[in-house]
């Protein structure tokens, strides 16, 4: 697969469609699986990793699935291409830069399925869906898991379930994450309260890029911590229930903002578009903050003629590796800030003239 063919696409998690897509950006489910009879990847020799990678690659190629998975050998990729796949949420930072030896990722053309090979576990299956789609994502990944299991012997224990390198993943090996855009809860300073409630019920919250109470771009991922002792559907139902409550809070906060300070909200969105369209240097963090304001403005109907998909495209294309691939050259930090500003200006002008 030539990664440049992915460049103009948006990828499943940023399509901006699907149920509850005014707040829910995407749903992701991953399963950690290991092959029986092999040490886990952290203790495997290069030869053992080559063997597990070959077995996984063979199973991925022959699995009976409604889509084709293309295998990409990660050590053979340039650092820029690896970073590109990280920004696309298709591989982890670990697989891209920290881990060594034979490893790879298998992807489908729509970028909704990815299988990392020789990450912390031999296999990390991942299915992405835009919007809130926990049941659909589970059905997809369950089938993928069955198709791979038919060709690979998994490490499974009668008491502990699917065995994983880290005991925090043992059992189902499943981590379900829902990415939420929560700008109004951030603006009305209610987000901390939501986090405290989530931690009490054993759900983890983190920003798209690292920890912190106010994540860049108001994007938060909520996921299950417990993987042992509950069935997959039960875990998913519990997350789904909590997400519905957060959705309600965020929408209430959005409505309250509009009702109580409509003009100020209009001003905030207009300033965000203004800065995005006129800056000559802009960081990725500031871009995300401003795009977050614009995205909220779109869903509050304060902006009529800017599609949410365009905001998502600007969001992904202004990330460091995407920007460098679009410009066709390596850029250092300052150069990237200038190139990012130029890209945003051009894109917003194109949109303006199309109106």
């Amino acid at each position, binding site marked *: 697969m030539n990664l440049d063919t992915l460049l103009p696409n948006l990828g499943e998690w940023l399509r901006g469609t699907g149920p509850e897509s005014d707040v829910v950006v995407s749903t992701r489910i991953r399963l950690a699986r290991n092959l029986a009879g092999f040490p886990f990847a952290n203790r495997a020799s290069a030869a053992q990793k080559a063997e597990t990678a070959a077995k996984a690659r063979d199973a991925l190629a022959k699995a009976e699935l409604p889509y084709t998975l293309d295998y990409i050998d990660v050590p053979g990729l340039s650092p820029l291409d690896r970073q590109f796949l990280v920004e696309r949420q298709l591989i982890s930072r670990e697989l891209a830069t920290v881990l060594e030896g034979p490893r790879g990722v298998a992807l489908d053309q729509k970028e909704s399925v990815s299988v990392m090979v020789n990450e912390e576990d031999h296999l990390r299956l991942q299915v992405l869906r835009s919007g809130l789609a926990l049941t659909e994502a589970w059905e997809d990944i369950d089938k993928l898991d069955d198709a791979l299991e038919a060709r690979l012997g998994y490490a499974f224990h009668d008491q502990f379930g699917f065995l994983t390198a880290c*005991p925090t993943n043992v*059992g189902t090996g499943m981590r379900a994450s829902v990415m939420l855009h929560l700008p109004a809860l951030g603006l009305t300073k209610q987000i901390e309260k939501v986090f405290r409630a989530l931690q009490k019920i054993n759900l983890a919250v983190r920003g798209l890029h690292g920890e912190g109470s106010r994540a860049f771009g108001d994007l938060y991922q909520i996921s299950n911590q417990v993987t042992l002792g509950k069935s997959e559907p039960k875990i998913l139902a519990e997350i789904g229930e909590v997400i519905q409550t957060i959705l309600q809070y965020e929408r209430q906060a959005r409505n309250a903002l509009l009702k109580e300070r409509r003009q100020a909200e209009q001003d905030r969105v207009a300033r965000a578009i203004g800065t995005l369209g006129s800056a000559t240097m802009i960081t990725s963090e500031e871009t995300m903050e401003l795009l977050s304001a614009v995205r909220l403005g779109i869903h509050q109907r304060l902006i009529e003629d800017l599609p949410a998909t365009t905001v998502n495209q600007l969001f992904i294309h202004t990330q460091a590796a995407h920007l460098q691939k679009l410009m066709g050259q390596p850029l250092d930090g300052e150069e990237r800030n200038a190139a990012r500003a130029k890209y945003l200006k051009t894109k917003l002008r194109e949109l303006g003239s199309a109106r």
Partner: protein
Amino acid sequence: MTCQFCDAPATVTLTEIVNKQKRVLRLCDPCAKKNKLFADAPGGAAGTVHVPALLGLLGAAGPAPATPAETAALTCPDCGLQYGEFRATGRLGCPAEYDAFRPALEPLLTRIHRADAHAGKTPRAVRAARRDDRLQELRRRMAAAARDEDYEEAARLRDAARQEEAGQ
């Protein structure tokens, strides 16, 4: 309730029961963060409990239960990993350690997941193997019942075996 490391209100509570002795660890968010209890797991997974930090904190939060010598000396027969190495990295070396380190792992899993047994999906291959075992057992008992001329029991076991086969 206050944090055991500073006096801020505690937001994280971990309970450990060893030899019927209950120990509770209470932390506030900043202390949990400072001790990297919820450090990002490798692999881009959402912030999960960081096992070495958890083990360290439980040791530091009051009188630690004496680590049984046999726990410290546990070594994996398959890959040679020692329990101490697992404690340092939080990563197991191979599937065999779930049995080899079981005395130490079971309480740890209970602390992390509040459960100690899988309740989710079972691989098809495992389900098939279990069915084969059940069938073999039914046939063995059926043959024994026939030998004892307990034909009623033999017929019941035959029906049960047929039902098991039909489930395939």
